[in-house]
C-alpha cells in the first residue's frame, strides 16, 4: 500500500476524530475498564489506547529510552507494568497524563508505537489482500482500530472477494462498509448504534468518489479533517 505522507496523515486524523473527538487525538487520555486478565480493572492509555496488561510496558519502555521529561519518574514503573496492578496508583496515572499532555516526546513516541501496533498490521493485511487505494487503506485501518481486525463473520455476509482473489476493490470496500454499517446500526446492544458515524463517513467518501482522499475536507463525526 503506497500512501503519500498526506494520505497517511488523513487516515490518522480521521481515526483520531472517531476515537477521541479531535483531529490531533488525545495523547493523555486514561480510561479504566474491567478488561484485564480475569476481568480485573486496568489502565487504558494514549491516543489510540493501549492497556496495562497489553502493550503499555512497551510504550513506556520506548518513552523511557527516549529520555522524555518524565522518563526518570516512569522508569521504576517499568518492572511493575503488567505485573502489579497500577490502576489505583494515582502517581503513575498523573505521570502518564502529564507526559501525554505536556511532553512532545511522548506524543512522538505514541505516534511511532501506534503506527507499529495498528497501522502497519492493517496495511500488511491490505497488501496481502491486494488493496491499493487510499480510501481502502482508511477503511481497513479503521476496522483494525475499532474491531481489532476485518472480522471474518462480517466478510461472510457479502459476496465480493478481495482483489487478491479476483474481486473488484471498490465493490469489496463498498460491500464491506455497507455490511459493517448494518451490523452496527442493528446491533442488539443499542449503545453500539451511534458508532455508525464511522461507516457513514466512509459511505459519503465512496459516494463522492474520494478514493484517493484528495477531496477535502472530510467530515468525520461532525469534525472537518483537512490533512494539514
Amino acid at each position: 500500500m503506497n500512501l503519500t505522507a498526506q494520505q497517511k496523515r488523513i487516515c490518522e486524523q480521521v481515526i483520531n476524530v472517531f476515537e477521541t473527538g479531535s483531529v490531533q487525538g488525545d495523547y493523555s487520555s486514561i480510561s479504566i475498564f474491567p478488561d484485564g486478565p480475569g476481568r480485573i480493572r486496568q489502565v487504558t492509555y494514549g491516543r489510540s489506547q493501549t492497556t496495562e496488561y497489553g502493550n503499555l510496558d512497551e510504550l513506556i519502555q520506548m518513552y523511557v529510552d527516549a529520555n522524555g521529561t518524565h522518563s526518570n519518574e516512569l522508569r521504576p514503573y517499568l518492572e511493575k507494568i503488567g505485573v502489579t496492578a497500577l490502576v489505583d496508583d494515582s502517581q503513575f496515572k498523573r505521570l502518564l497524563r502529564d507526559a501525554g499532555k505536556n511532553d512532545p516526546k511522548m506524543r512522538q513516541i505514541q505516534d511511532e508505537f501506534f503506527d507499529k501496533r495498528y497501522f502497519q498490521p492493517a496495511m500488511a493485511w491490505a497488501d496481502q489482500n491486494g488493496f491499493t487505494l487510499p480510501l481502502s487503506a482508511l477503511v481497513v485501518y479503521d476496522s483494525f482500530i475499532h474491531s481489532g481486525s476485518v472480522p471474518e463473520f462480517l466478510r461472510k455476509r457479502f459476496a465480493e472477494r478481495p482483489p487478491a482473489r479476483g474481486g473488484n476493490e471498490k465493490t469489496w470496500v463498498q460491500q464491506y462498509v455497507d455490511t459493517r454499517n448494518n451490523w452496527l446500526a442493528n446491533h442488539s446492544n443499542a449503545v453500539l448504534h451511534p458508532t455508525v458515524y464511522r461507516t457513514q463517513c466512509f459511505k459519503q467518501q465512496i459516494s463522492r468518489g474520494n478514493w484517493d482522499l484528495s477531496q477535502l475536507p472530510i467530515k468525520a463525526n461532525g469534525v472537518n479533517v483537512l490533512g494539514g
Partner: protein
Amino acid sequence: MARKALSLLPSPLLIFFVFALVSACVSPQRDPAESPPQLVPSDWKPSLEQVQTSIQDELETKAQKSQQYLNRTSQNLSDLTDARLFITYILLMQNLDGKEQKTLFDEQKNWLAKRDELARSEVVSKGGSLAPLEYASAFRQVTEKRLAELEQRLAQMTRKNK
C-alpha cells in the same frame, strides 16, 4: 493429698462461667429464631437512580460521541448499575436468617461468574476499541435483570416483615 488436688480444681460455678464464655466466643451463630442483625439503619437509603438517569440522558442527547466517550460513559453506567445491585443485595441479605443468607451468598457468587461469561460472549471486537463498549453494555443488561429480580424479592420480604 487427694483433698489438696481437689482444692486446686476450679469450682463448678467457675467451670460453667468459663464454658459459657468460650462457647459464646467460638460459636458466633445466632439462634435461628432470633431476628437478623441490622447491618444498615432502616432510614438510610442511598440513591443512584438520578445520577444514572442523568448520564443516560446525556448519552442519548449528546451530538458528537467519540469512541472514548461512548466507552467511558457506558462503563460508568455499568458501574452504577452494579453499585445499585450491591446495595439491594445488602438490604436483602439483612432481611434473611443465617441459612437463607448462605443460600443467597452462594446464588450471588454463581451468578457473578455467569455474568462475566455472558458479557464476554458478547464481545466480538477482540483487540479493538469497540470491545469495552460491547462488554460494558452486555454487562449492564445482565446486571439490570438481576437487579430487578433482587428488588422484587426485597419488596416481597419488606411487605412480609411488616
